[in-house]
């Protein structure tokens, strides 16, 4: 019961936060009114990456055999599938909902609890989504850019979505005997594996760029808007217009 109360409280907090979503006065590429605080958090995140995440990710890719890593990631990803289905439904994406439901059923059974991903070989490729995307579909504004402690680049809308996804993961309803720590641990495993797979790119952004904060902000926003299909901002930059002004 106290758990349910906590969840309700978290959802209420998210809705309150969203209603206070900070929107820019006009269309801008980057809306970052909290830049000073964000930069502080970024510095801490880089320090954490250097001390913990990067070495752990390196040990993960060098010390653990590929098939074991893949199995762990598959298992962790499968725990998110019910959440994908719910978000698909909330977005009115019926086809995606059915697609992800079949993925979950096939991988949980034939894939032995999600360790293997036979659904992909049947042509049911992963189609991930999240509550941040649901909020986008519902018309919530992107809000200000945020860098979150440990979680990294985000926006007000995506931060709200992340809270909901973590707190309300429906996998607990389906697999009620699943211990509480399993799903959050799965999240951590996926973060480590992503850090390992994108090692060169992430090292380039965090340790080789002149301003790693501005780089990660720009790259996050560009990629996230692309993912969402958010064409609200001017997607393409035309250098000819800028240089020769016509």
């Amino acid at each position, binding site marked *: 019961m106290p758990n349910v109360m906590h969840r309700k409280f978290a959802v209420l907090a998210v809705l309150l936060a969203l209603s206070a979503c900070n929107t820019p006065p006009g269309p801008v*590429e980057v809306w970052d009114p909290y830049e000073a605080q964000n930069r502080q958090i970024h510095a801490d995140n880089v320090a954490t990456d250097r001390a913990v995440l990067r070495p752990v990710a390196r040990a993960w890719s060098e010390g653990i055999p590929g098939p074991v890593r893949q199995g762990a990631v598959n298992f962790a990803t499968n725990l998110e599938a019910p959440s994908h289905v719910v978000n698909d439904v909330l977005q009115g994406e019926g086809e995606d909902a059915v697609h992800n439901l079949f993925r979950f059923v096939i991988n949980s059974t034939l894939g032995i609890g999600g360790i293997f991903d036979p659904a992909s070989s049947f042509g049911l490729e992963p189609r991930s989504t999240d509550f941040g995307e649901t909020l986008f579909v519902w018309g919530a504004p992107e809000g200000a850019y945020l860098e979150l402690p440990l979680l990294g680049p985000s926006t007000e809308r995506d931060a709200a979505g992340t809270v909901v996804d973590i707190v309300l993961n429906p996998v607990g309803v389906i697999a009620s005997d699943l211990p509480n720590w399993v799903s959050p641990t799965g999240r951590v495993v996926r973060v480590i594996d992503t850090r390992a797979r994108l090692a*060169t790119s992430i090292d*380039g952004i965090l340790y080789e760029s002149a301003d790693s904060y*501005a*780089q990660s902000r720009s790259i996050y926003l*560009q*990629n996230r808007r*692309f*993912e969402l299909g958010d064409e609200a901002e001017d997607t*393409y930059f035309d250098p000819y217009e800028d240089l020769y002004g016509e």
Partner: protein
Amino acid sequence: MANEISRRAVLGGLSALGVAAATPATSLTADAARDLITQAVADINAVINSGKSESAMYRDFEAIFRRYADVPTIARSALGPDARSASRAQLSAFADAFTGYLARKYGKRFREFIGGSITVRSAQPVKSFLEVRATADLPGQAPFAVTFLVSDRSGRDLFFDLLIEGISLLKTERTEIGAMLDQRRGDIDLLIRDLQTAG
């Protein structure tokens, strides 16, 4: 500058002939843009799977950039407002250093594509240029989107931006070069020198 004048003259001549008037946005066709990128992608695929050394690959990528991309425009745009106060010699030295830097930096990314391939999917006009969409297929990974933006505004059909999963080279480099310039208090010569080894 001479280049810019002749480009304007050519564009002026074209519009006088009514060619530009017939196709208001660009005279570049989707087929031409698609052909250009198909050729560029074939060259990139060949380098990725050539098994050459890292430095040899970077040289090849640099040649591909010089052949298929509008490097002077990308360089000027990356330099931002500071390009206006730069001398011609500085601009050309910057464009040169910038090309090598791009080839090393993006060559590193393309090296992650080893064993994979890029396939051109479609081309369509957007604003005054062409958008060519491609997919990169890598072994054991979900395919991802690579988009080239092509224009003939330089006088030749060339790409001026390359986007991987929505992340634009042009936008990213405008941020990066801007930050590098700030770090060097706007000293373009220092930036040019440092770019020769960066990336």
